[in-house]
């Protein structure tokens, strides 16, 4: 099968192209290296060998033109090797020009024999004659004399201004080879000389300096030249390709009386006849590699996936007591995994195939801008999925151009600011935490934040008072906003209008992200984070009406568990639609079951009808999940029956006949062989008729969730997870050697300065990596000293103080408070006290009698972190806990349900604790309800104020023992009172 497919691509012509491309890539690298290190002969040898092979190959299959040009190049390189010519930048320019031409000829090898190679031959001639070494800077012969060969055949003409610039095959080829700006320049030699004092040699020099002259033509208005000196006007048309943007081009050219026309649009017009064979995909750089159709690789991926399923089935049906069979299964298991891995790897290509083009781009740009820039590449061998690589091309080109244009200063400016005159642009790729990190770093002037501010105000993106509140980093990120395009920061890419926002959009499309770090006067670093592959993506597996669906994790912001109580409180009807109260905002809501039940997109009438229906049906009896989905810059909630977990899935395209169903983006085969549809966040939002604008006012409300600064202890326990504990909960941290841990029965003990501690290994209670028994280990001693238990950690990372936005829904487990993003990484927040009591339970050490017997406590706190901490503390003592964010919410809860105790913070938005207490005390129906103030403030004044407001007691946060004692005290007395009041209301 492979041979069959390969033979199609194995004709001698095709083989030649593949080989020639490899030689050309090699030549390009060698020429660039030669310019940097003219002394190193090895580059010359490489270059000679490649020229020679190319010449031989072309000659063998009868491509005479390519052979002649390659021969001329070979001779030129020999002259350099023999010392007859010095590889000055001008000489390198000539070689590169010829190289580009060969490249174009190879791409269109069918027509190459009729192609015109006069110009590259002409450019190589000074090298061959040894005159280039004597410092010929321009090519007066070729530019000043009227172009001998006008366009052989005119294939594209525009209608308006550019019509005066017919574009030949030659120009087109060269342009396709090196996409850049294409300009037409029209001038009158006489006018230039008289009006602008610019003489032909100067004009020729300037034309040469701003770009590459691709074609030119001169027209005499008077009698022919041999009849006497020319009479004005003497028109001259030139077509140039340049890396310079329009403004810079005009500025650098500096010929006021010349007319400049942009010509890219002419080329991009569709042609009636095929002009040149489309550029074949660049072959892999390694000689001796096979070219395999992507379809075949995909098929192999599928088969490998199927093998995994069969392996799973086989594992189930194998008798676990049968040792030989188990061994076979283990082999099958490891080989299956390796096969799947290998199939994935086949889609990978080294980043180098993309990076290789940048030294050339940087060189051309630098020469045209009059700067000195070196492009340094590291990590070219890092591999990325082919599709991602292709999508990355435009954003990277834009960023590199950006660095050249705006980042690196002119040499004299650099010297003034104490930097070396040669600027650096470093491109690097590396793998990091299952992602690929690509960095583009320049050592230029850095982002001009004042200019960004001015522009943001000008464009109406931000008000100046908003800008003042932004951090430097947030300011830098503004350039990624759509609509932020400054003449000073952003240029078009080949007229296609790729701005920084498009860079970001392109990256997001492939599940990547871009970060900017800028230091004034030191440079900018753009960091691109990309997934390794698109073929396998992490997804959330969920269920609606007994059917499973998957949603890509990158679309998901959060998952909210709605217990029947929560659902009643959090799902509201506003404007005749259902909305979700979430972190103090109202999010539009869709129920997946509803959305998929109708083919017609929802109208507001349908939404209202559904809302009424669900409202009438009353709250669900089973818990629901609300998945918060990002759709562009908006968010909405999707209600599903269950979240089954996460899965890495292989994406299969949706069947062509089903494409009109925009709520799906594809399908996948799950681990058990079943098929699940992949949902589209955007599609669902559109189908569900969600109008984000309606809720924009609500969304603009300040978050009622307060995010407070906290000091954390960040540590690792084993390799993987980042763990965090609030520093307040920690007494001290001690470094120990593993051998000091002693085993006594089934316990592990460590002696620290005469005190013996039980070692608590986290992996025994949570699904986290095991702590290795080597190197230095750390013991984290909890503040609560009553238990002599210490948590074992493998690495202490830091103790940062920073805002923590705790998410208590995404990861729920006993002993875990929740998760939060710390420094771009998900950290698991541990509940140390809970873990200690879990350890005690497991050791049946003084099994704690649970004092709370199902009594209900309402905890009111605006900080998710404390809310969770207090709730967990109470729950582990056996109480039932409901939480509210602030006073008004608490009162709503109190009216619906009966509680035995309210524990409330004092400082809260909307309705604070004091107002809450006053409200409760003045309202009938709450008589005798015990109220406890729990605050971080402990002054006498605060204490007396809270008692005045109606609290029964005022406790201080973090003092767990006295808090728990107060809870028991209040419940002991409160129970009598509340049950009495219950009786009286019933009577």
């Amino acid at each position, binding site marked *: 099968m492979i041979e069959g497919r390969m033979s199609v691509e194995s004709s001698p012509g095709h083989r030649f192209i593949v080989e020639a491309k490899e030689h050309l890539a090699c030549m390009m690298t060698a020429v660039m290296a030669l310019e940097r290190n003219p002394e190193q002969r090895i580059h010359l040898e490489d270059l000679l060998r490649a020229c020679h092979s190319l010449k031989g190959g072309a000659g063998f299959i009868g491509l005479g033109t390519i052979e002649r040009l390659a021969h001329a190049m070979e001779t030129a390189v020999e002259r350099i090797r023999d010392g007859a010519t010095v590889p000055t930048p001008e000489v390198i320019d000539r070689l590169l020009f010829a190289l580009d031409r060969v490249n174009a000829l190879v791409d269109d090898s069918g027509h190459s024999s009729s192609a015109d190679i006069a110009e590259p031959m002409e450019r190589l001639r000074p090298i061959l004659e040894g005159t280039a070494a004597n410092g010929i800077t321009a090519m007066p012969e070729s530019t000043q004399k009227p172009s001998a060969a006008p366009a052989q055949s005119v294939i594209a003409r525009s209608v308006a201004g550019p019509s005066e610039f017919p574009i030949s095959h030659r120009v087109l080829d060269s342009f396709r080879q090196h996409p850049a700006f294409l300009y037409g320049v029209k001038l009158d030699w006489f006018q230039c000389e008289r009006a602008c004092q610019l003489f032909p040699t100067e004009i020729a020099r300037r034309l040469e300096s701003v770009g590459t002259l691709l074609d030119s033509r001169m027209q005499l208005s008077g009698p022919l030249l041999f009849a006497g000196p020319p009479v004005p006007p003497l028109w001259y048309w030139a077509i140039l390709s340049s890396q310079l943007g329009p403004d810079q081009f005009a500025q650098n050219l500096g010929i006021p009386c010349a007319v400049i026309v942009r010509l890219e649009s002419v080329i991009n017009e569709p042609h009636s006849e095929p002009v040149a064979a489309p550029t074949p995909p660049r072959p892999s750089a390694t000689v001796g590699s096979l070219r395999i159709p992507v379809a075949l690789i995909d098929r192999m991926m*599928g*088969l490998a*996936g*199927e093998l995994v*399923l069969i392996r799973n089935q086989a594992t189930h049906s194998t008798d676990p007591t049968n040792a030989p069979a188990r061994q076979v299964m283990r082999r099958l298991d490891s080989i299956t995994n390796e096969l799947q891995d290998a199939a994935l790897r086949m889609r990978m290509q080294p980043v180098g195939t993309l990076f290789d083009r940048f030294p050339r781009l940087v060189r051309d740009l630098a020469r045209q801008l009059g700067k000195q820039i070196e492009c340094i590449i590291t990590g070219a061998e890092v591999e990325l999925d082919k599709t991602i690589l292709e999508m990355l091309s435009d954003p990277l080109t834009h960023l590199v151009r950006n660095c050249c244009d705006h980042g690196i200063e002119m040499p004299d400016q650099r010297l003034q600011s104490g930097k070396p005159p040669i600027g650096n642009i470093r491109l690097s790729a590396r793998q990091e935490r299952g992602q690929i990190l690509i960095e583009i770093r320049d050592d230029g002037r850095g982002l001009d934040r004042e200019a960004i501010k001015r522009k943001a105000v000008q464009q109406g993106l931000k008000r100046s008072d908003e800008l003042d509140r932004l951090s430097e980093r947030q300011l830098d990120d503004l350039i990624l906003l759509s609509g932020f395009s400054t003449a000073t920061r952003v240029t078009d890419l080949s007229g296609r209008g790729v701005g920084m926002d498009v860079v970001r959009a392109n990256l997001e499309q492939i599940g990547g992200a871009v970060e900017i770090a800028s230091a004034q006067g030191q440079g900018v670093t753009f960091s691109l984070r990309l997934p390794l592959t698109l073929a396998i993506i992490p997804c959330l597996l969920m269920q609606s009406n007994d*059917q499973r669906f998957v949603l890509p994790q990158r679309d998901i912001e959060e998952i909210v568990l709605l217990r029947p109580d929560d659902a009643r409180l959090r799902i509201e009807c506003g404007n005749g639609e259902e909305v979700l109260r979430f972190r103090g905002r109202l999010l539009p809501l869709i129920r997946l079951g509803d959305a*998929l*039940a*109708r*083919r017609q997109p929802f109208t507001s009438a349908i939404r209202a009808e559904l809302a009424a229906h669900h409202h009438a049906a009353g709250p669900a009896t089973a818990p629901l999940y609300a998945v918060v989905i990002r759709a562009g810059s908006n968010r909405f909630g999707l209600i599903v029956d269950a979240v089954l977990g996460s899965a890495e899935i292989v994406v*299969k395209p949706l*069947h*062509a*006949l*089903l494409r*009109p*169903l925009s*709520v*799906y983006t594809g*399908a996948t*085969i799950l681990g058990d*062989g*079943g*098929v*699940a*549809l992949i949902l589209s966040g955007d599609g669902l939002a559109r189908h569900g008729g969600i109008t984000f604008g309606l809720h924009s006012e609500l969304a603009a409300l300040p978050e009622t969730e307060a995010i407070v600064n906290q000091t954390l202890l960040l540590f690792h326990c084993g390799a993987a997870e980042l763990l965090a504990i609030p520093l307040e909960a920690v007494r001290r941290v001690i470094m120990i050697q593993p051998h000091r841990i002693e085993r006594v029965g089934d316990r592990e003990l460590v002696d620290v300065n005469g005190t013996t501690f039980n070692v608590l290994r986290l992996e025994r209670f949570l699904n986290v990596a095991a702590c290795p028994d080597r190197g230095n280990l750390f013991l984290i001693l909890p503040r609560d000293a009553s238990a002599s238990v210490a948590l074992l950690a493998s690495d202490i990372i830091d103790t940062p103080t920073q805002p923590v936005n705790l998410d208590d829904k995404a990861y729920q487990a006993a002993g875990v408070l929740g998760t939060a993003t710390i420094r771009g990484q998900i950290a698991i927040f541990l509940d140390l006290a809970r873990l200690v009591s879990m350890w005690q339970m497991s050791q049946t050490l003084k099994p704690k009698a649970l004092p709370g017997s199902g009594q209900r406590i309402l905890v009111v706190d605006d900080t998710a972190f404390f809310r969770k901490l207090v709730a967990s503390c109470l729950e582990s003592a056996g109480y039932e806990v409901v939480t509210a964010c602030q006073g008004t919410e608490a009162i709503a809860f109190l009216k619906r349900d009966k509680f035995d105790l309210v524990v409330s913070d004092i400082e809260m938005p909307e309705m604070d604790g004091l107002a809450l207490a006053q409200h409760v005390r003045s309202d009938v129906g709450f008589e005798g309800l015990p109220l406890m103030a729990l605050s971080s403030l402990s002054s006498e004044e605060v204490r007396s104020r809270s008692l005045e407001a109606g609290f029964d007691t005022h406790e201080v946060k973090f003092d767990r023992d006295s808090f728990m004692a107060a809870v028991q005290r209040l419940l002991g007395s409160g129970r009598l009172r509340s049950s009495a009041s219950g009786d009286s209301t019933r009577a």
Partner: protein
Amino acid sequence: MPELAISKPPSRAFLTFRSSGRLYGLEIAQVREVSMHMDFTPVLQAPSLVRGLANLRSRIYLVLDAGMALGGASGSCTSESRLIVLHESIAKNLGILVEQGGDIIQVPIGQIEDADHAEAENASTQLTPTYVVALCKLEGDMMMVIDPGRIVSALETAIR
């Protein structure tokens, strides 16, 4: 008598199946395989013609319901039900679920009558989409030859 003279009359092969009791046939060249796979993932929002998605050897197939297409009701999956996978030339990754699978039969050309020709005169049938392209008179039965391409076009119209 020379043996060559009794060569069989030209015939065409059909894969037969039954739906609501009636006998249908598919030209054998249009069929890739017949499978007993009966596990389908429903595609909500899709027209009723779509039975669901099936995983056959890690390829995902779209399965249409012959019962729905041919005017009857959606057939239940029984031990006699079959998934007829169509040839790639008709549609990629497409199968048809039939209530009751049948044999492959050879029908002499003479017994095959063009249905479009016959139906053209019958204006009443224009109201419902017809997938029947030919009729075959068999012993004691009538087989309707259907064109799966027309079912695909019907789906394309219905899903828009």
